[in-house]
């Protein structure tokens, strides 16, 4: 019973935040310099197109009415037409979403798996030289501008040694019948390597330090000492008991990390010319393609908000103290 109230509350909160962000977006684009129509109408559109858009978005109506039309259109998946591509924004944005998500999740999974083990290891080696060098080193990776790391990797491994391509998701001219065919092709994975590596190196710091910190706390707990008194093996004590407890906050941080990572994507996608939401947002802003910019931003915000929700629910689900009241 309690679980339903908790979930219900979270869902409500998420809906509220979503609405707020959508509203902020609405006002930001309406209040820009230039005519209020500029948010949706490219002067290069034909008069018929312009008229059609004006009607669809009620651009001649008072602002508050426009807001509701906007919301209504949003619910139907209508985000306007891209000035540059002459294509519905929603279509374009949804087509790009998988590219971004693949990058985000691949790099995060890599970062977290590495981070958890390395963090546990550093906690195990508390007080040793390994730790004294390791911790500052990890902090340094978090101080690195992601794009700079990407540039370095590109310069060394792509331009320098020619081991990896310089960008994009596929070899120029390569055609794939379906998305699935593309994503499972070696070509795609080869192109994915450097960007994923860049993001992973940057992101591993958080789970590593978190895991290390948690392990150090947990190892001091009474139940860990008890496990030793029971004569259980080192593996059982460290992994089954200590690590399992230390892992909890790390797993929930994964969900939140997705939200942060997606923002970082913006830059890495640009460096590696990776056709994702981030790069699209940048291009859209550079070319004053406002509907597309709105759409890309909205999609990114949606993922962030959703992952925040997932993080909350995950925490509740994983901690038996919360689920079994």
């Amino acid at each position, binding site marked *: 019973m309690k679980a339903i109230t908790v979930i219900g509350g979270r869902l409500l909160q998420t809906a509220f935040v979503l609405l707020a962000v959508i509203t902020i977006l609405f006002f930001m684009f309406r209040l820009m310099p230039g005519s209020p129509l500029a948010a949706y109408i490219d002067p290069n559109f034909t008069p018929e197109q312009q008229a059609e858009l004006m009607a669809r978005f009620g651009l001649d109506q008072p602002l508050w009415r426009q807001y509701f039309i906007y919301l209504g259109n949003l619910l139907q998946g209508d985000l306007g037409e891209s000035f540059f591509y002459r294509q519905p924004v929603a279509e374009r944005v949804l087509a790009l979403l998988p590219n971004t998500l693949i990058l985000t999740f691949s790099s995060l999974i890599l970062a977290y798996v590495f981070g958890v083990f390395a963090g546990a290891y550093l906690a195990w080696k508390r007080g040793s030289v390994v730790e004294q060098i390791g911790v500052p080193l990890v902090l340094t990776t978090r101080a690195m501008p992601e794009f700079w790391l990407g540039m370095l990797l590109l310069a060394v491994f792509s331009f320098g040694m020619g081991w990896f391509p310089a960008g994009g998701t596929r070899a120029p001219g390569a055609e794939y019948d379906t998305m699935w065919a593309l994503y499972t092709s070696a070509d795609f994975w080869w192109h994915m390597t450097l960007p994923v590596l860049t993001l992973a190196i940057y992101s591993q710091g958080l789970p590593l330090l978190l895991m290390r910190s948690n392990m150090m706390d947990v190892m001091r*707990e*009474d*139940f860990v*000492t*008890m*496990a*030793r*008194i*029971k*004569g*259980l*093996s080192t593996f*059982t004590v460290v992994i*089954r*008991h200590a690590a*399992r*407890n230390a892992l*909890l906050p790390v797993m929930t941080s994964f969900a939140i990390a997705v939200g942060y990572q997606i923002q970082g994507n913006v830059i890495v996608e640009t460096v590696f010319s990776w056709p994702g939401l981030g790069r699209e947002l940048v291009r859209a802003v550079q070319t004053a393609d406002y509907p597309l910019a709105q759409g890309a931003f909205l999609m990114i915000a949606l993922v962030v908000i959703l992952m925040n929700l997932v993080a909350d629910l995950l925490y509740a689900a994983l*901690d*038996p*103290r919360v689920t*079994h009241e």
Partner: protein
Amino acid sequence: MTEPLLCLKDLSIAYRVGTHDTIAVEGATFDVQPGSIVGLVGESGCGKTTLARSLTRVLASNARIAGGQAVFCGEDIVGLSERAMNGLRWREIAFIPQSAMNSLDPVYTVGSQLAEVLIRRGGMGRRAARTRSEELFEWVGIETNRLGDYPHQFSGGMRQRVAIALALALDPKLIIADEPVTALDVIVQRQILDQLRELRERLGISVILVTHDISVVAYVCDRVVVMYAGRVVETGPMAATLTAPAHPYTMGLRNAFPDLASAAGELTPIEGSPPDLANPPPGCRFAPRCPFVEARCQTDVPVLQSYEGDHLAACHRIAEAETLRKRAMASETWEVPA
């Protein structure tokens, strides 16, 4: 007299703080017979918990056994290899912690924690472990359907029973109980202590019961070991030692505890506080607070000598114990001149 289950001789435990060692327990000597409950009593900081814990050989990272012997079933566990010692852990020597809440892993059910010990250390199969778990729960008086519950779902007293069930799992010969009832209310205390009695009576298990509460000792123990400032100052059969103590400290302890059964008298505390173990006084450590102190007490360390049979005390004036006892009953004896 039968062969003692555990025989401690001159056991010392040291802590390393910074560059020097602090001796937390010095020259502890006493026996534990099979099927008996020994109360290890003293005020906080006297070293009783350190001593008791050391018998599992799981010590804090800066602590070590600095000398002496602890002969358990014929083998000195001080010198045992880690591997051999681990063989003994839980199977022969088990432990009941002070606060079971923190000693149970919060993310596993109590059933799975019980099964873990039974399977991994007891070599049982799943089904056998389940049966035994149910048996153990019945024994300590918890409904078996609660095996699927998490530690936080139990009350303090119930958690302590879970701890007892865990300790019993592999049929150990010796259970070390570190202040098992301190955190519980009086009624629950009695239930748990009764349970410990049953362990001795029905299963023949020996218990070392660490406590600062002398009434607990009086209720359930066969023998008493009194510690002060890291040393054993008195040991003997419970009744004899508590009714006719031979060491001034024990005499003082008796006065400091209310006895509900007898007429309400005044409580006479022992003034002062225990010495700093980093810099202990030479000679008898109780000398600064002892009402019967003499010159030699401050220079010569008293050794445990027999007062009467297996009732021993470490006091230079042991021969005058009877006289000193009478004086100790008067509260004026304990008053410190202003």
